């Protein structure tokens, strides 16, 4: 539980930055070398490497090295967990709203004997 929460924190933190989201979008089209990945961005290579380390830490990017060339690919599995996080929140609130719905129904039932039926 704690571990999965920490992992989700890492995923959300990784997704909070627009450069990292752009990197992921690019990797969604296929794997890439770090050099090719950095090309479209107007930031330094070390800055890109830093973003990649954050993405790796969240488990969203896998890096492999062949000689001097480092290649990156997307691992989308943690995103399913992140989506699940929001879904759990939704389920939690849906239950809370179910209570409101039940209560509104009770109020309407109480009103019926005194007035006409709808």
């Amino acid at each position, binding site marked *: 539980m704690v571990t999965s929460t920490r992992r989700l924190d890492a995923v959300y933190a990784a997704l909070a930055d627009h450069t990292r989201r752009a990197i992921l979008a690019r990797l969604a089209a296929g794997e890439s070398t770090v050099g090719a990945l950095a090309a479209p961005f107007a930031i330094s290579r070390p800055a890109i490497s830093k973003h990649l380390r954050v993405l790796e830490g969240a488990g969203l990017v896998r890096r492999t090295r062949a000689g001097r060339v480092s290649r990156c690919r997307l691992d989308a599995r943690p995103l399913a967990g992140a989506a*699940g996080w*929001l879904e*759990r929140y*939704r389920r939690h*609130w849906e239950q*809370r709203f179910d*209570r409101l719905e039940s209560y*509104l129904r009770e*109020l309407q039932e109480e009103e019926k004997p005194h007035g006409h039926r709808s």
Partner: protein
Amino acid sequence: MATVPSPGSAAGHRLVVTLPSDREIEMTRVFDAPRQLVFEAHTSVEHMRHWWGPRGFTMVSGAMDFRPGGAWRFVLRKPGGQEYAFRGEFREIVPPERIVWTFEFEGAPGEVAVETLTLVERDGRTTLTTRSVASSREARDAVLRSGMEQGAGETWDRLEEYVGRPR
């Protein structure tokens, strides 16, 4: 896929949650009730104690001064006995369509969210929308997490099953 039955989903009134910006959470749901009644359910402790909070929680203390500038405070007790307190103040009240109030969990003092409740009636049904603006993205994400953790309970395992299904 595992399903989690609830009266709401059975009636087709699914809660929709969206994150319109880094600091916001928006929730929308339709109720089979006139707008006036949905509004009234939000106007007094006598009403709120019947439904405000997760299932199984009881409101052990509640106070609300339902007017702009008026304060509110609710204390909920979990089935295990632990208590949680929430407080805030009403900023704007436009019967029967809009309430703006601040929301603060006393366990995270200083993290004040501003919540706007909007009610729209159509064909005898009411669409309820709440838009909550947190003080920061971190605070918003902490709220998302707390909802998940509070939601733990008997449905937890079923949610695990639902969320963890192969895709």
